[in-house]
């Protein structure tokens, strides 16, 4: 089980959290202007890296707030935790996705 440090509540068991997938996926600025393929990419396609991954978690059984985590998808090590809306830490060499 993962031990996740909620930015507000501190370390809690994974079972208190809900997973939200890739972080920093921005809603398209002008959705009407997108082609079907671009819209499909926004709706359905996410990064799937083998390595550090910026992802969202919600402390569903606690403060109920969303926040972001950098987690290594092979070792499951949590490398960073930061609040929603903050920029992604640059030191993990993440690729793809919106800033």
């Amino acid at each position, binding site marked *: *089980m*993962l031990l996740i440090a909620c930015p507000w509540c501190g370390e809690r068991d*994974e*079972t208190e959290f*809900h*997973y939200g*997938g890739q972080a920093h996926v921005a809603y398209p600025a002008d959705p009407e202007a997108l082609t*079907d*393929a671009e819209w*499909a*990419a926004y*709706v*359905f*396609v*996410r*990064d*799937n*890296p*083998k390595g550090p*991954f910026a*992802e969202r978690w919600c402390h569903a059984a606690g403060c109920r707030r969303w926040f972001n985590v950098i*987690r290594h*998808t*092979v*070792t*499951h090590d949590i490398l960073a935790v930061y609040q929603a809306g903050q920029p992604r830490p640059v030191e993990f060499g993440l690729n*793809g996705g919106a800033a």
Partner: protein
Amino acid sequence: MSSMSPQLPEHPDWLWRTPEPKTSYDVVVVGAGGHGLATAYYLARNHGITNVAVLERGWLAGGNMARNTTIIRSNYLCEESAAIYEHALKLWEGLPEELEYDFLFSQRGVLNLAHTLQDVREGTRRVNANRLGGVDAEWLDPDQVREFCPIVNTSPDVRYPVLGATLQPRAGIAKHDHVAWALARKADAYGVDLIQNCEVTGFVRDGDRVTGVETTRGRIAAGRVALAAAGHTSTLTDLVGLRLPLQSHPLQALVSELLEPVHPTVVMSNHVHVYVSQAHKGELVMGAGVDPYNGYGQRGSFHQIEHQMAAALELFPIFARAHVLRTWGGIVDVTPDASPIIGLTPVENLFLNCGWGTGGFKATPASGWVYADTIAHGRPHPLAEPFALDRFTTGALIDEHGAAAVAH
């Protein structure tokens, strides 16, 4: 119990050569799991294409082919899915003879239990849909469930009483490792090179075309490159800038110690969420859904194991004193509609067969059959056509979440 064979097949002698990779092949298949091996076998058998290599970064059938819970069924709701899985089931029924290898395909039936009124409606609807589509299916009331599988707790005095079940009598289980070895032996006999410890690290490009692969054992030219890499598919397509609607998740399973034959069939429950069979050797084999987070570590979180064991105890009080012998995890690639992606890609000569998620083993022969045909002719096999990558753009999804008789 008559449905359980008392003996496993003898461990065979070497079933395939260990060739050095040649510099060039007509088709390079990436991944020597069940789907990759079946693809190579049918390329040779059905299309006469034998100048084929199957490249495997680890050892043959050491990924999800070694980690699945061996359940074979075709009772899907969506007709596109039922068609391809039923094609697989028909092939399974002939494969032991065709491959001259008894991998103990045991058609002991699969029960999908219903615990709520919604489950009952969904189950009866799926039985009707299956019958219309030529897939064997029956609806059992709780007494018939007890008769078919006496160890299921059908008491009304439990948290989620069994209100009925669907039964597919032709469904069952098989010895997964032996399936892979049977396919590998025949593919090898046709002249296919099975090359282990050979990881693909890049693609050779000529404009928009792929003309080969870079590997840890050198460059290999290929007329066509066919991916069959399951959870690692997107790490490969990232190398050619092709982003796919795939997320790789841990999927865990477990076995008990060896027990006397006690469980005559396969039981799946979507609502309390576990599926349970008993292997020929005697282990109870259980699995459930994926861990929610992305993962490539071939392990997940232990509370998933606790959850499925709690579900198993709810359904089978007789298992209360059984011990867990082993748990493990595989890496499954899940698509947004929980259906596979099979077919061509925007990169010429690069083919895709992925996204089987939690249910790829049962599809093994049909997956290889339609993929080989797609590769041989450069256009989708009719059964594969609905599963093309562009369905995410057109919106013609095959939404198997909740329709596939088990949650993903």
